[in-house]
């Protein structure tokens, strides 16, 4: 009778990993294709709008952000050519110099104004004025999607 008694079957616990490589490569390809370095990483609350169009990818960015805390400087303005990380500027003249240089290099250069919704319009006005003085042709105002009718 001993022969009839089956051998102890051990249930094998194994995670099937053969498709892991496929999944990993799929993710890898996805992230490589969608890879884009964000030139300006300033965190802010953008204003919400219904009308939104895609802004050009290589556009220069001017960001205006409110202070992180009360003790900091009142507003931070940073500029980026679109290819490099953004750098802070302290005066409007610097924005004019920056924008004029970019426009001289490419007269069709687009500019994105990325401003927090709580920023006083006076500062935004000064930045827009600096861009207009520099003969910038295309300006985009960055915004978030508005989702609920007020």
């Amino acid at each position, binding site marked *: 009778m001993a022969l009839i008694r089956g051998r102890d079957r051990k249930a094998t616990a194994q995670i099937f990993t053969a498709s892991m490589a496929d999944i990993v490569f799929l993710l890898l390809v996805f992230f490589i294709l969608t890879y884009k370095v964000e030139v300006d990483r300033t965190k802010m609350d953008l204003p919400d709008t219904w*009308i*939104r*169009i*895609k802004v050009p990818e290589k556009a220069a960015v001017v960001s205006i952000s409110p202070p992180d805390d009360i003790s900091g400087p009142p507003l931070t303005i940073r500029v980026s050519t679109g290819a490099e990380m953004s750098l802070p500027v302290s005066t409007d003249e610097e924005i004019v110099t920056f924008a004029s240089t970019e426009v001289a290099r490419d007269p069709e250069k687009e500019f994105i104004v990325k401003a927090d919704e709580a920023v*006083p*319009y006076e500062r935004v006005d000064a930045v827009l004025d600096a861009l207009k003085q520099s003969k910038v042709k295309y300006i985009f105002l960055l*915004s978030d999607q*508005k989702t609920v009718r007020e």
Partner: protein
Amino acid sequence: MRIQKKEIASEIFTGSMADISFLLIIYFMITSAFSADRGMDFALPEETDTPEIKQEDSIDVHVLRGGAVEVDAKGMPLEGILPYVLDKLKQNPEKPVILRTDPDATYGDMIRVFDLLRQAQSEWTDADGRPLYMDVHGNPLVGIKTISIPTRREIENLWSMLGIQ
């Protein structure tokens, strides 16, 4: 004497592939950000054919401190702006809308009104894009042709040109 051939195992070592690919995934995940890439375009007038705008020929939208809006110097709720503008454009579709903002108002206040004016196109057409309104000449009205956002310096320059202090 027969020399026995040694079989060389031809195999690509894939044990570390998972490590490498995960490392790359993590790198791309962290450095690539789904950045905000949409917004409103802000058309600037071509320098050559800047139309001369007279105050009485335009619709003056003034955003005040706190977000209240005055249209042609009359206080108006946000919902009232587009119907008013539509009424004016029916008489003269070429009328530009000038959006001025108080320096003490916030950027969000100004964008709210700008967004509202830009919605004219969708508000004045039906779902198929057909115009709902006609002007006095019988031409369809499909939106505001010109929305101008002058900066404070430009407004001051205009005033000094007109001799207003």
